[in-house]
């Protein structure tokens, strides 16, 4: 089963495609999914968190692929960037708010043509936009995102995500595979097992206060802090023998590092709202849990880098597959949508290859 088949079979109605670096092949993946899912009879919606579509890579100067929405798809773009594509769009909604690029325009593509996708960056607005496209008639909405625009992958915005990585993500194949393997591990963080923990954590996050959960206590122990950023030590010094700390907003690398030192309990855990709120590039050694789990469906690889280096697609797919499934990790199918290479046999419970 190829990537499009996997997505189609999953039944998700919104999917983030998140590039983990420049040149990771995210736009190629977006185009592939848009056209393949459309060919399967689905009406596809296409949104970007922020602005996608510089025509040349601002770093390398190389031409960048554009999103080419298939005929009949629904898109979100802006008045200021419609250009020639404006005549090929059936406008169904216009936002009241004006951004730098004018008002947001939602419409149905009448003829396939390169189009710049534009969308909001906030979780709430992006979620509203996804729901609006679904209400207009899209069967599935693809949301373009990146590691510096992670709102797309927030569970409040999309039901699932595909990570795109590429040869430009690291200096060698092992480094690339390790990086994506870690990211998959991080974004697969589970909810806490105990019901009492989940309930108290949810209440603390709703209140927006960093809170500690003590074993047996009927309520969370609130601190006056609304963020851990800049207050890591002050907060953790209050841990005592708490079993968990619940952190609304971003969880910094420093906080995770300090969380291993201050609390009295060895199994002290950190609960974030979702994995996209956790900012670390290595396993901090502290258990990490989330209030809302993310559903990662697959990884795509681009074996060609802008630096002129490229890898054999089958080798890259195999290396990334191995790293993702290392140890007790669940594993995920990996695809190169250009060459058609994919993970061998059954991976992560999914039959591929």
């Amino acid at each position, binding site marked *: 089963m190829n990537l499009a088949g996997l997505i189609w079979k999953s039944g998700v109605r919104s999917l983030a495609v998140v590039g983990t670096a420049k040149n990771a092949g995210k736009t190629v993946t977006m185009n592939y999914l848009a056209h393949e899912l459309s060919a399967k009879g689905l009406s596809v919606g296409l949104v970007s968190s922020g602005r996608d579509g510089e025509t040349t890579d601002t770093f390398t100067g190389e031409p960048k692929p554009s999103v080419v929405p298939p005929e009949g798809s629904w898109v979100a773009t802006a*008045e200021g960037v419609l250009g020639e594509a404006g*005549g090929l769009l*059936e*406008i*169904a909604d216009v936002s009241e708010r004006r951004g730098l690029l004018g008002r947001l325009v939602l*419409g149905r593509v009448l003829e396939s043509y390169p189009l710049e996708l534009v969308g909001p960056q906030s979780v709430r607005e992006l979620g509203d936009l996804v729901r609006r496209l679904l209400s207009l008639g899209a069967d599935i909405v693809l949301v373009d995102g990146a590691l510096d625009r992670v709102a797309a992958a927030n569970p409040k915005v999309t039901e699932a995500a595909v990570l795109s990585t590429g040869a430009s993500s690291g200096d060698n194949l092992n480094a690339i595979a390790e990086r994506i393997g870690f990211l998959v591990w991080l974004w697969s963080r589970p909810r806490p097992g105990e019901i009492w923990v989940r309930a108290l954590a949810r209440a603390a996050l709703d209140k927006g206060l960093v809170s500690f959960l003590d074993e047996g206590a009927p309520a969370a122990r609130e601190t006056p802090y609304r963020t851990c950023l800049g207050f890591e030590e002050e907060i953790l010094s209050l841990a005592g023998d708490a079993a968990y700390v619940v952190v609304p907003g971003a969880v910094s690398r420093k906080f995770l590092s300090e969380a291993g030192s201050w609390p009295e309990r060895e199994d002290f855990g950190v609960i974030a709202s979702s994995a996209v709120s956790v900012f670390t590039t290595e396993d901090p050694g502290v258990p990490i849990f989330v209030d809302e789990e993310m559903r990662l469906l697959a990884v795509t690889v681009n074996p060609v880098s802008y630096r*002129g280096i490229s890898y054999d697609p089958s080798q890259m797919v195999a290396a990334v597959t191995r790293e993702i499934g290392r140890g007790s990790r669940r594993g995920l199918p990996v695809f190169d949508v250009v060459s058609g290479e994919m993970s061998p046999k059954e991976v992560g419970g999914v039959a591929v290859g």
Partner: protein
Amino acid sequence: MGFLAIFENLSPKSSLGRRVKGRARPSLPGEERDLVNEYDAISSLSRAWDAYPEVFSKIGGVLGSLKDPFHAISLLEEEKVLTPSELFLVAHLAYSAGRALSAMAEARGLSWPERATPPALAAVEKRLLPGSSGQPVFYVVDAYSPELARVRADRKNREKAWRAEMQNEAAAAEKLVGRHVGLREEIAIRKSSPVIVEKARLMPELGETRETLTHVHFRVKAAREAVRLERDINRLRQRESALEEEVLAGLSRELAPKAARLEAAAWALGELDYLICKVELAREWGAVAPEVEAALSSRLYIENGFHPVVKEEVEARGGRFQPVTLDLDPVVSVITGPNMGGKTVSLSTAGLCVTLAQYGFLVPCSRMVFSLYDFVYFQPQPPGKPGLSSFAAEILSLKDPLARNSERGLILLDEVGKGTNPSQGLALYAAILQHLRERHDQRSTVIAATHYHGLAALVGAPHWQVAGLQPSEPEMQAGNGAWMNGARDINWLYQHMDYRLQKVGPDAPTPQDALLVARLLGLEGDIITRAELLVSAGKVAEDC
């Protein structure tokens, strides 16, 4: 007084409704008829809501999806060409007006206010949304221009031909690389396959684009026929864009004379939105239409009035809210009562009801009779200005209503003079009330709340008093006021306070209960006892 909080919480469903709300202003003396018409409209719609709930649901749906077309309309007035987005907004306005009118017509026999009834824009809707059903969408359709239709068809045919030509070329490349090749794709062939690279270089169907460390890149080359078709397609695209611009310009010229009608429709939908907000509020409160007297008088009658914010707070803490009845005729009336007796609530309820009424809302009471005022003055809480005592701030604030001799005002004064020497405070308060009565000459209504004994008699004004604390019979039977010394708290006070206003004689003594209230609020008993001794020893005058 609470009016601002209530008004700010009012949420029209659309930006058009918010625009109308933003320019709301009170009706003033001379505008009684329009105000009464407004009350009738709200009452009528409120009754109709029960009979036709689905009508209001449909209208709510239309209002909730309204867009702001004013920028587009202003462009039409300036005779500018609208963009497709702006034309969509005009089309959406026409569509919404049609849906609103259609829903409104379903409420048979109901007369909608003219200002909240949009003009029909069926012709605009038909012109901008030809063949549309359901969701309004806008596109420069072929129907607008036969020439455009022809050019588009020609372009699509040539694109189809180009794809066929290019596919022929791509077939060879696909055979070489062993997979599907996109017509505009850059094909990368690894240098580690030099035979394939060489073959690709020799193929007339492929053109080399660049070379990197590990790959050589190619594109499918357009043959002569494909190149010719590309030129034709580019030319046709330019012609198509120009024709689309002509269509947009033509539509804009057609719509320009209708700008005033479009604007009227937009405002009407906004008025409808704001009006329905008032209806919803009236239904939530069980509010009534005030009776507006034609001749201006100082009479103010409010029966069973309640302050919605205070009522909500009281009920939230499990208490019972007692409505207020005020029947005031002379220019000046005095209200006295115990601490925590609700004097301020009475004042703010009166002010709120009048303000709501003059802003065209139905009022939270069972009956209200009044005539319109030029202004409402509610003595504000002492401001936190540095360098100003609360007394000084009070005096500065009072200068404004005192100076407005030629206008009718509802002037609500709460314990003027409390921040200074009691005897002079009383004298000042009495003098202010006498001045207001003389200068305002039956035009205004002044309600003065106070703890000062004798103010009503000094001024010769009607005296209203809060009934006060009513301990239960068993507690009274304990005798000698012993119930006052029992362990109580503020909730006991809430439960036993009778907030009703009763007319009493001018010399009726003001309740002396400050020490009781202090005790109930938890002040140390030792302090209360000392204070009681000072009073009973005559060291401190019990009244002022």
